[in-house]
Structures are given as structure tokens and as C-alpha cells.
């Protein structure tokens, strides 16, 4: 067939890109080669429209052991000779079309990124976004995604310890499914995704290759339209049992000392793993595609190169040590095939039936090599005018008599209510290391067995704040993650991010991207939490428009002494409830304003990064001093939701009074940042206030913990059990109502 610019266009390459490919090869590519470029230069693999701004993030420093983007996942020093490996990745597009397999393979993919580095995954998290929960389509997507995550994670045997679920109309067509995994490895025992040593054999291990997932990377690099369902073959199918065996076999094979480099096959399958490993090692590979085990007959070269069949790895083995490798995979009943060797010419050469099917310099395919990098234009979105025009005075404050009713409404908003319906479907306890099951905290606290330490992990992003003010919203996402870690007694170590945005060719969308990334970067510098890596997902857009800009932050912290772990719940009646940080006359972008008052456009809530930093530093110090018995930050739903959530675990109530001249709704439901509610025993309340005064941090006594009854401003609000019942069952009621 003749290869033209039109062929390139059909493969989602632009005319300019086609010219560039011809220039780089010095000839017109054949179809297989063009397919390879199409996959490797897709947004998903090449970051061509984002890398310029990603480079502005703090990508080294702190306790980082490898620079961002160098390996499959971030690696940080957690002390005692151990490293923590973590990464978050999106699987939005497949999940929109086939929620069960889409989400399942998202979980599988991120686990491989962790164990391909030689680390054993110990915790999974996820961040999910859907449309209105009352909508039948949303319920189908939610059920499918949750089932898929559970199906894969539960069998694979890594506990799902945390996450977030939001429901907003903008995600109706484009749900977001972001999966994160965290693993542990001995420092110095990691394996690099590199190919070295001319003549070393290249092994293909794990599942056989089929036609599933062909073009997945480029599929994920386009808007979702009505025709997208026709791309169903672009969705992969997962087999968690196979992956569990692959995990154990890969960790065992590393111990043989025979492994030179290893990389999992995710997006763009064989072509991506061979190209990236070769480019990194400055070598080439000669690959015999006939030797790749297949599960379908008559697969063509381009299909083999692009297939995204799951549970596969590429391993470069030290020549002469092949037997040791084969033995391990035989033990685990996994296939391992020698499919080629490392060469010195920097070329990827793929053969089939003795014919050379493709010959491409590995360097030209990859990010940081020949892949294009674009500077995109951006301009302030028109809707921001509406946000700036918001006037809180136009919103009538709530009357004292209505306060309880509004509170009942707010704790049953799906974004705020318990996500019990979701998380009971995940095995959150396998590994016997998740301490948060019986002792809840703002970020999950996981024992890192064998290291003498615990890790605390969280995912956070309030995308309405980012939509309202991309720069501030980006900062808040990082700040909230750090606050959750600090409130759990941890020291924030580093960040992995999943940047979910609309179409980057839309200047207004790109403005959101640029500003949000800038805000994140500034916040990460402030909290000394470098960005270790992550993933960009553009094109979360449909004919009705883009999703809210959603830069999901995954953060990992370390707890050196487990006894410094902090939990969120009230411990004892009579304890004093203290607010650290300042109440603000601010209802902007709150769930209250958006869902109860129906206001779509308002600024991000009050946020000042220095104030935030001061509050976090102070909270960390009083936890370390063992002064407080609980700590829980104020987030969606405001102060009242925080007070209630602190009571649910032990069925303890509270008695509080508003002592302020700010708006009633702002006092109880405002979402101003940098506020944490702690409890102290009565005899230590004074000490806490002294310390706060000395540190220049506001600390206000709100009231005290009760045996189970709730009293607000002197009015009886009933029992904590009754509130818990509403909070726990709100989502279940909506789902079963249909």
C-alpha cells in the first residue's frame, strides 16, 4: 500500500508529523513503521503537548532516588535502607467505553509499573469522577468501574486503602478513573527499564499477545464521541491471576541476578517497551516477532507491535544466565520466550518470517528523543468572567432555624456522604498492614512490614476549585494532600500526579492546564514534595465540552515512629474540640453553594499558601508532642461535616457553639482551606492554646466531645447514630431508588 499524509492522518498523526517522520528516516515509512510512530508519538506516550510545562515542576530534590520520568515510577528514600515506589495513572478512555475492563486493566497497569522496578506493591488507591449519581448511566459506570477495580485488585492481592469519588455533571460522558499503587523495595535492589550489553538476549514473558487494545494509546489521545464505542477493541482485557504470578516471578527473577533491565508492556505494547528500553541504554534491538507467543492466528507485524494485551513484560537478560530466568518462569507456569537480542546500532529491527518488517532508530520514537514537543497557545477562558463576578452578598444566608435541615441535606450529598457502597467491594485489608480499618485517619496509614516504618498515602483533588481558579486550585490539591498526610502523623515525601484535562488544542483548556501545573509546582516547592512522575490524560472532552480540570495528586508520607501516627476520630467524652486555623467569611465553591444553592460559578475558597504551611507545621508539632488525641482537616462540606465525621467511628457526639460574626453558612459549611479540628483532653487545652499563641496560629475552642448526643448553638440535634445512618446510606439509597 502507498503511505501518504492521508494514511498518517487516519493514524492520528498530523501532516507536519508525517513530514518529520520522513525526514528522520530519510525515506517514507512503511505501514508498520508509521503505526509505530503513531503510537509512540501519541499524546499518551510522548507527552508532546504537556512536557514543556511538566518540566517546570520540581522534579528532583527531597529524598528522590531517581529523577522524575527516569523510570516507570517514582522512587524515594524512606529511610532504614528502603525505598518507596509509587505512581498514579489514568484509565479514563477505556473506562468510559467498557467500565469493568477499563478500570480493571488500569489497576493492573499501575501495579506493573511498580513491580517492574523490583518493588512489591503494598497499597492501592484510586480517584474516580462520574456524572450525576441519579443518572442511570452514571450508576452503570460506577458499578462497572468499582467492580473492575475490585475484581483485579482483590485477586492480585494488594489492598485498596484509599481514594476519592466525586459526582459532577461535567463527567457524565467522560468519567475519570485514576489508579495509584505504592510499593516497597530495598535501596540498591531496584531494576531499571534499560537495555544494555550488546548480544544480551531479550525475553518476552507473561501472557500471549492478542489483538486486544490495539491502538489504545492513540485512542486515549482523542475526544470521546458517539462513535467511540466502535473502538471497543482498543480496550484491553485483564487477567489478575496471571498478573499475580507475573509479580511473584518478576521479583524472584530479579533475585537470580540475571536481569539487566525490565519494563512492563502497557500502552503501545512491544514497540513502546523495546523503544524506551533501547533509547535509555543507547542501544538497539533485533526482534523476531515470530517468537512472540500469540493467542490469535495470523497477526500482522503492526498488530504485534501495538497490541496492548495485558500482563506482559520485556526483560533483558545477561547472556549466559538464560537458564536461571527460564527456571523461575517455569516454576510460576508462565511463558518466557527469547525473542531477540540487544544490538549496538541504536536501531529497532523487527523481523517476521525472515523479512525485515520495520527498522526505526529507537531514539526517534521516544520522549526526550525524536518525539515532537509542542508549545501550545492558551488564553483565559471566558467563563472566568462569571467566576470573578460572583458576589456572596447575593446569596441569602441561612436562618438559625434552618441550620439543622441544611446540615442533613449536606451530609447526604454523594460527594460528601460515606463511600461505603464503593469501598466495601475492595479488599482493603489483604496484606494485614492497613491500620486505618480500625483507626481511621485523614490519609491511610500502612505498615511497611520489614522496614520499621509506616507509610501514609492519599489522593486528592477538588476539581471545582481548579475550575474556578486553575492556579489556586492546583495549589490547593497539593496542600490538601499534604494536610491529610500531616494530620495522620506523617511527613510528606513526594507527589505523583494524574493530570486529567480536556483537549489541549483548545486554548482555554490549555490555559487551565498551564495554570494548574504552575500552581501545583509552586505548592510542591513550598511543601518540599517533589513530583516523582505520573501521567497526563488530555482529551477528557466530548461535544458538550471538557471535564473540570482535574490534576489528581497522589502523595506519600512516611511515619518514622508508628507511635506518632494520628487518627481522626473523637476518643473520649469531655475532650475539648479545638479549631486550628481561622474561620473565614467565605462560601465560595463549597458543596453548600454549588449543590444546595445551585451556584455554578464562584471563586476557589480562601487559600493562602503561607498560612497553610504554618498550620501544617503547627499541627505536625502538636502531634509529635502527643498533645492532641485526634486531628481531621476541614474539606468538602465545611466545619460541621468535619465535626460529624469525627464522631462516627466511636459513636461520640459533640456540643459546640458558633462564636463569630461571620455568615452562618460560611461558619458551618464554608470550605476555606488551612483548617484542622483537633481534640485534646481537658487538662491540656490550655497548653495547646499557649503553644498556638506562641506559634502565631489561631486556635479556637469550639466545644467538647459528648457521649453521643449532638448540640449545636444550644439546640438538640439528636444522636450521632442517627446522623451516621444518614451519612452511611445516602449513596446506597440513591442507587437502590432506581
Amino acid at each position: 500500500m502507498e503511505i501518504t499524509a492521508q494514511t498518517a492522518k487516519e493514524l492520528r498523526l498530523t501532516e507536519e508529523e508525517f513530514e518529520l517522520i520522513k525526514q528522520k528516516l530519510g525515506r517514507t515509512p512503511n505501514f508498520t513503521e508509521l503505526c509505530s510512530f503513531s503510537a509512540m508519538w501519541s499524546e499518551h506516550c510522548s507527552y508532546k503537548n504537556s512536557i514543556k510545562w511538566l518540566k517546570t515542576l520540581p522534579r528532583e530534590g527531597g529524598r528522590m532516588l531517581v529523577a522524575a520520568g527516569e523510570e516507570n515510577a517514582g522512587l524515594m528514600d524512606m529511610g532504614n535502607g528502603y525505598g518507596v515506589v509509587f505512581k498514579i495513572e489514568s484509565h479514563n478512555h477505556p473506562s468510559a467505553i467498557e467500565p469493568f475492563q477499563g478500570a480493571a486493566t488500569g489497576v493492573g497497569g499501575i501495579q506493573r509499573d511498580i513491580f517492574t522496578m523490583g518493588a512489591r506493591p503494598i497499597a492501592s488507591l484510586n480517584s474516580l469522577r462520574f456524572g450525576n449519581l441519579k443518572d442511570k448511566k452514571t450508576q452503570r459506570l460506577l458499578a462497572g468501574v468499582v467492580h473492575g477495580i475490585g475484581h483485579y485488585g482483590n485477586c492480585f492481592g494488594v489492598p485498596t486503602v484509599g481514594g476519592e469519588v466525586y459526582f459532577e455533571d461535567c463527567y457524565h460522558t467522560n468519567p475519570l478513573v485514576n489508579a495509584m499503587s505504592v510499593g516497597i523495595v530495598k535501596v540498591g535492589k531496584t531494576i531499571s527499564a534499560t537495555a544494555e550489553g550488546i548480544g544480551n538476549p531479550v525475553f518476552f514473558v507473561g501472557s500471549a499477545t492478542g489483538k486486544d487494545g490495539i491502538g489504545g494509546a492513540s485512542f486515549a489521545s482523542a475526544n470521546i464521541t458517539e462513535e467511540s464505542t466502535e473502538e471497543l477493541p482498543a480496550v484491553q482485557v485483564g487477567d489478575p491471576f496471571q498478573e499475580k504470578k507475573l509479580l511473584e516471578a518478576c521479583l524472584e527473577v530479579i533475585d537470580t541476578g540475571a536481569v539487566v533491565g525490565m519494563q512492563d508492556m502497557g500502552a503501545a505494547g512491544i514497540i513502546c517497551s523495546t523503544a524506551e528500553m533501547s533509547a535509555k541504554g543507547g542501544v538497539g534491538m533485533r526482534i523476531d516477532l515470530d517468537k512472540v507467543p500469540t493467542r490469535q492466528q495470523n497477526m500482522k507485524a503492526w498488530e504485534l507491535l501495538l497490541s496492548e494485551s495485558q500482563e506482559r513484560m520485556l526483560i533483558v537478560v545477561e547472556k549466559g544466565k538464560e537458564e536461571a530466568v527460564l527456571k523461575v518462569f517455569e516454576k510460576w507456569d508462565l511463558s518466557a520466550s527469547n525473542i531477540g537480542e540487544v544490538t549496538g546500532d541504536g536501531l529497532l529491527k523487527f523481523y517476521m518470517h525472515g523479512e525485515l518488517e520495520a527498522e526505526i532508530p529507537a531514539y526517534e520514537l521516544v520522549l526526550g528523543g525524536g518525539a515532537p514537543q509542542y508549545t501550545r497557545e492558551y488564553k483565559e477562558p471566558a467563563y472566568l468572567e462569571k467566576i470573578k463576578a460572583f458576589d456572596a452578598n447575593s446569596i441569602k444566608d441561612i436562618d438559625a432555624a434552618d441550620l439543622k435541615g441544611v446540615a442533613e441535606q449536606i451530609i447526604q450529598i454523594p460527594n460528601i456522604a460515606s463511600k461505603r457502597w464503593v469501598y466495601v467491594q475492595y479488599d482493603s485489608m489483604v496484606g494485614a498492614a492497613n491500620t486505618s480499618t480500625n483507626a481511621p485517619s485523614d490519609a491511610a496509614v500502612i505498615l511497611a512490614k520489614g522496614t520499621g516504618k509506616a507509610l501514609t498515602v492519599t489522593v486528592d483533588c477538588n476539581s471545582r476549585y481548579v475550575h474556578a481558579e486553575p492556579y489556586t486550585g492546583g495549589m490547593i490539591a497539593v496542600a490538601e494532600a499534604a494536610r491529610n498526610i500531616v494530620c495522620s502523623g506523617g511527613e510528606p515525601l513526594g507527589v505523583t500526579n494524574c493530570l486529567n484535562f480536556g483537549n489541549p488544542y483548545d486554548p482555554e483548556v490549555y490555559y487551565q492546564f498551564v495554570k494548574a501545573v504552575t500552581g501545583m509546582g509552586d505548592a510542591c516547592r513550598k511543601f518540599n514534595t517533589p513530583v516523582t512522575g505520573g501521567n497526563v490524560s488530555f482529551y477528557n472532552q466530548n461535544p458538550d465540552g471538557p471535564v473540570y480540570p482535574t490534576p489528581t495528586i497522589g502523595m506519600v508520607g512516611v511515619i518514622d515512629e508508628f507511635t506518632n501516627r494520628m487518627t481522626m476520630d473523637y476518643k473520649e467524652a469531655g475532650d475539648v474540640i479545638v479549631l486550628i486555623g481561622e474561620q473565614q467569611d467565605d462560601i465560595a465553591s463549597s458543596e453548600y453553594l454549588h449543590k444546595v444553592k445551585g451556584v455554578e460559578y464562584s471563586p476557589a475558597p480562601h487559600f493562602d499558601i503561607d498560612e497553610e504551611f504554618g498550620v501544617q507545621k503547627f499541627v505536625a508539632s502538636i502531634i509529635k508532642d502527643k498533645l492532641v488525641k485526634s486531628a481531621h482537616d476541614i474539606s468538602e462540606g465545611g466545619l460541621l461535616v468535619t465535626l460529624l465525621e469525627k464522631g462516627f467511628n466511636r459513636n461520640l457526639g459533640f456540643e459546640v457553639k458558633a462564636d463569630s460574626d461571620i455568615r452562618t453558612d460560611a461558619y458551618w459549611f464554608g470550605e476555606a482551606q488551612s483548617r484542622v479540628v483537633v481534640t485534646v483532653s481537658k487538662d491540656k487545652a490550655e497548653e495547646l492554646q499557649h503553644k498556638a499563641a506562641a506559634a502565631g496560629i489561631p486556635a479556637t475552642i469550639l466545644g467538647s466531645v459528648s457521649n453521643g448526643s449532638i448540640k449545636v448553638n444550644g439546640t438538640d440535634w439528636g444522636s450521632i447514630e442517627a446522623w451516621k445512618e444518614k451519612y452511611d446510606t445516602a449513596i446506597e439509597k440513591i442507587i437502590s431508588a432506581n
Partner: protein
Amino acid sequence: MKFGVVVFPGSNCDRDMQDALQYDLNKEVIMLWHKEKDLSMFSTEDCIVLPGGFSYGDYLRCGAIARFSPMMQSVIDFANRGGKVLGVCNGFQILCESHLLPGVLLQNAHQQFVCKNIYMKNGDGRALKIPVAHGEGRFYADEKTLYELEENDQVIFRYCDEKGTVNAGSNPNGAIRSIAGISNRAGNVWGMMPHPERATSAALGNQDGLEVFKILELYGTVAAEKQELATAL
């Protein structure tokens, strides 16, 4: 008394069981690979544990393939000689498939996987808080089998609420007569859906699992209960 923990390729609670037995119960543990057959290092006073997980993927009926593994042949023989065998979750499913225990484990009544703390009790004992995590844990047997199980005191655990009351609301999977665990007639083979190994450490904030091992007389003295946080870490 020592323990053997069988490792199937898809076992994922094998290490948790090993940790609980070694660190929290101070027992000697030997890990047993499913392709092996040798149990000669165990006497019938010892206990073989089939841990939770997805033995062979469990895409067919859970435990249906594991039953035919080489190690299971030896375990079946060991049990028939009077050796102690404990199956937890997937291990319970395997014991039923192997006919070492009566009944079957069906898909949960609400057709969803469930992972949470539940309460269960042995006879009139106190309610124990123990985690469950399964999609197919609804115990079922015919009337005749149920009659025999109850007549011979083979129902070792029933789901109950925090106060020890057995009722429909506290049954996490719709198991018939709220059955969470049973033994064989001879009393040397036990199966249960809840995971006691996930509730044996102070760091996890729940040690009710130790009570389970005591009830099965697999624990020994109460003195061993004292444990340092450091062991779990």
C-alpha cells in the same frame, strides 16, 4: 506444634498467615509450594493451613482446581489420618471442594464482593470482630447436612452483631443459618470465611483473631498474647 501454610500460585493471604502465626502466635511455620507433595515433616499434632486468595485464579468455581494440586492430595491424606487442617476464605472453599468439609460456598446473596469487619461467635462465646473479604462466601448445605452439622456441634462460628445476637442484618453474605465456619465430624478440619490472621496484631488495632486460634486450640497458652508492636513492623 508447628504450622504448614500451603502456597498456591494465586494465594494472597499466605504471607499474612505466616506473619500472624510466626510473629503474633510465636509458632514455627513452614511454607508449602502447591507443586510439592512432601508433608513428612509434620505429625498429626501439627496444622496445615490453606490461606485465602484466588488459588488458581478461581475463574471456575472457587477452589475447584486447587483440589487437584499435588500438595492437596497430601493434605487430604494428612487430614484423613487425623492431622489438623484449617482453611480460611479460599482455603475453606478448597476444603469443601475437596470434600473434607460438607456444603458449598456460593456467590454472596447481594452478588458483590464484601470486605469489612464482621462479628462472629463460637457457641455462646463473646462476639469476635474479624474481617471478611470474599465474593463467594455464602455457605449452603441441604437440610440433612445442616441437621448433622448442628447435631454434632460442627458449626464453629456464626455471624452475629456486636452484642452477639445472630440475625439477618449481621450476616454479610446470606450464609444459611448465619454459618461462618464449620468443622468436620472428627473435629480436625476447620473452614471459615472470616480472616483471623488479619486480626492478630496490636498495630492493626484488633486482636480478636488470637481468640479464634485459641478456640480451635491452635494457639496454646494465653501468655503468648503479649506482643511487641515491633514484630509487626
